[in-house]
């Protein structure tokens, strides 16, 4: 028993070192493949890749992964069930839409911005500045929303966060006319957004100064970096004072408070950090889709993100990353492609992509039955789910002794 715990932590440490390398290599290979190789391949191969793994889908996966990693801080680290994470995604998206587009045409502000020619009115802030602004704004709203709700426990917290997840997109839907001021453009949403400026990197051969809707390979680099940033923050914050306090709260709230951990502040910190990463994901998503609309921030998104966290392995960043990449790929491309192939092969006309939630639900049930800890679980959680507690075993022993007497 003793050695197994130690062995477990050692192997997980090795995995921690090799996984970043693995994912970095993978990212570089993907970049090289799409940028330099794919265009030179024969047409059928190009079609196959374009169908099954288009770069837009990869980019979308990366953004979902960034968001899932952010949600993991709230759900996986601190153990606070949040069913309304999409709220921060929406806030981040609208921040980007406000200060990176011609939308507020009554003003003309440009802070290192990259306004498209002819669309110079409005507020144009540089994308790389919008990221921290969006993160900070979301963290602020995380604290505003969290301060009253985090006093609640488990199920009640989940319900109230669910409420906020519904309210925030509704606010944007209805804020087309706030006392005559158009805050969100209502159901139409806001577009187009400014392209992502590459700054000094455009001096490199082949790199454009601004990444428009079709510069997917370079956008891949941008979103990859953002996802890497979210992972970096998650990993770093886990091992310090705050990460330990989150774990302690997840384990035993009362004991944690008796050991000097301020519950509200610590939970709020988790909520704020999670919200900030959600904001970064939201800003990135707005640039990917080149606009925001209230319809893209649905309750289902919160649930899919949660499914990614649970499926991947709650609490383990790498698991969540893998879970997010897989689920979003299935959701965006895999299922539809499979449907097309299936229908052509068997002459049916089943619309597979409309069954996505059925499949996710079934997937979650299967996971709960056979691998509750997720694909790549945290070493600690694996402990709980696979090994009985020593105390339990000894209690069994004591009971047996009791019957013998």
């Amino acid at each position, binding site marked *: *028993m003793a050695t197994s715990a130690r062995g477990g932590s050692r192997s997980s440490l090795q995995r921690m070192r090799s996984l970043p390398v693995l994912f970095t290599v993978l990212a570089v290979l993907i970049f090289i493949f799409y940028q330099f190789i794919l265009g030179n391949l024969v047409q059928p191969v190009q079609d196959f890749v374009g169908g099954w793994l288009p770069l837009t889908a990869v980019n979308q996966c990366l953004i979902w992964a960034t968001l899932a990693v952010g949600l993991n801080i709230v759900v996986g680290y601190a153990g606070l069930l949040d069913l309304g994470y999409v709220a921060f995604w929406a806030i981040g998206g609208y921040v980007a839409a406000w200060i990176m587009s011609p939308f507020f045409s009554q003003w003309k502000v440009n802070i290192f911005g990259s306004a498209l020619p002819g669309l110079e009115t409005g507020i144009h802030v540089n994308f790389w500045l919008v990221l921290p602004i969006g993160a900070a704004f979301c963290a602020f709203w995380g604290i505003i929303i969290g301060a009253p709700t985090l006093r609640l426990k488990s199920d009640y917290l989940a319900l109230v966060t669910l409420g906020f997840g519904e309210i925030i997109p509704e606010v944007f839907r209805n804020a087309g006319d706030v006392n005559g001021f158009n805050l969100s453009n209502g159901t139409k949403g806001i577009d187009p957004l400014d392209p992502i400026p590459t700054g000094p990197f455009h001096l490199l051969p082949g790199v454009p100064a601004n990444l428009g809707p079709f510069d997917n390979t370079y956008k891949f680099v941008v979103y990859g970096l953002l996802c890497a940033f979210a992972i970096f923050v998650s990993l*770093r*914050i886990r091992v310090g004072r705050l990460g330990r306090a989150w774990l302690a709260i997840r*384990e035993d709230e009362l004991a944690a*408070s008796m050991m000097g951990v*301020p519950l509200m502040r610590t939970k709020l910190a988790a909520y704020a950090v999670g919200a900030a990463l959600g904001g970064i994901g939201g800003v990135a998503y707005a640039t990917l889709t080149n606009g925001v609309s209230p319809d893209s921030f649905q309750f289902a998104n919160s649930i899919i993100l949660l499914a990614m966290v649970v499926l991947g392995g709650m609490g383990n960043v790498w698991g969540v990353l893998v879970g997010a990449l897989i689920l979003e790929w299935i959701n965006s491309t895999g299922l539809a492609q499979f449907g097309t192939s299936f229908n052509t092969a068997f002459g049916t006309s089943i619309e597979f992509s409309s069954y996505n939630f059925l499949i996710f639900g079934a997937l979650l049930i299967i996971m709960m039955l056979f691998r509750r800890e997720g694909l790549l679980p945290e070493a600690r959680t694996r402990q709980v789910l696979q090994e009985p507690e020593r105390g339990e075993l000894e209690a069994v022993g004591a009971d047996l002794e009791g019957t013998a007497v």
Partner: protein
Amino acid sequence: MTTAEVTTEAPAPPLSMRAEGITIKFGGLTAVRNVSFTIPKGSIVSLIGPNGAGKTTFFNVLTGLYSPTFGRVYLGERDVTGLAPHRIAGLGLARTFQNIRLFNLMTAEENVLVAMHSHMRSGVFRTVLHSGQQRREEREGREVARELLEFVGIGRVRDEYARNLSYGDQRRLEVARALALQPQVLLLDEPTAGMNPQESARFVDFVHRVRDEQQIAVLLIEHDMSVVMRVSERITVLDQGEKIAEGSPADIRNDQRVVEAYLGKTGTEGYGSDA
């Protein structure tokens, strides 16, 4: 009752903790009625009483879990009545739990480090940036944690998950975790529950060591009278929410009201040999 009056007349020794006129009502039920209580610096005192006497309720008032209906609690010179539990803990009141409440999926060392939370400073940004200050803080925290684990005698299981430790080691880890708060007062809630007489005897020595080496006052809630009589310098007895006696172990042993509270007036059942 008389013994309580004697102690208040004596020249006041420096106190680690003081509770004055604590009353707690739950709805119409008075769980604790007008109990005053002091813990002198560096002393070992016990709180005893039959089941349902209000010991745990009183304990929970001291730690800030309940706010008293009337009365005030002082830690050192500071009025801590109504402060949140984590504030009181940070000001130097540590406790263990009757039913062990460790952070099961954290290692022994991590358990101890959690209790240093209020003595550490690093926030989100310093942690993410791994600032020099943060790394120093972590390194020093780890060293202190190791020393504490050595002190309670479980240095060898530092990297084990708390859930995998033996029952005795878990009890020790709880003490190490509590000591990491650098408390003025350590509250032990039935620490010898589930121990055999040899282990209890060793525990008595251990409590003395904690007091002598760490300069901490200890308050004990305990059922095992042999432990209470051997370890305590002063004993307070609660019965039905009221303080019925206070004094040295010898006084308590001979106090008529205590004997009645434990044995009933006829003295036919329970606790006979101990009290």
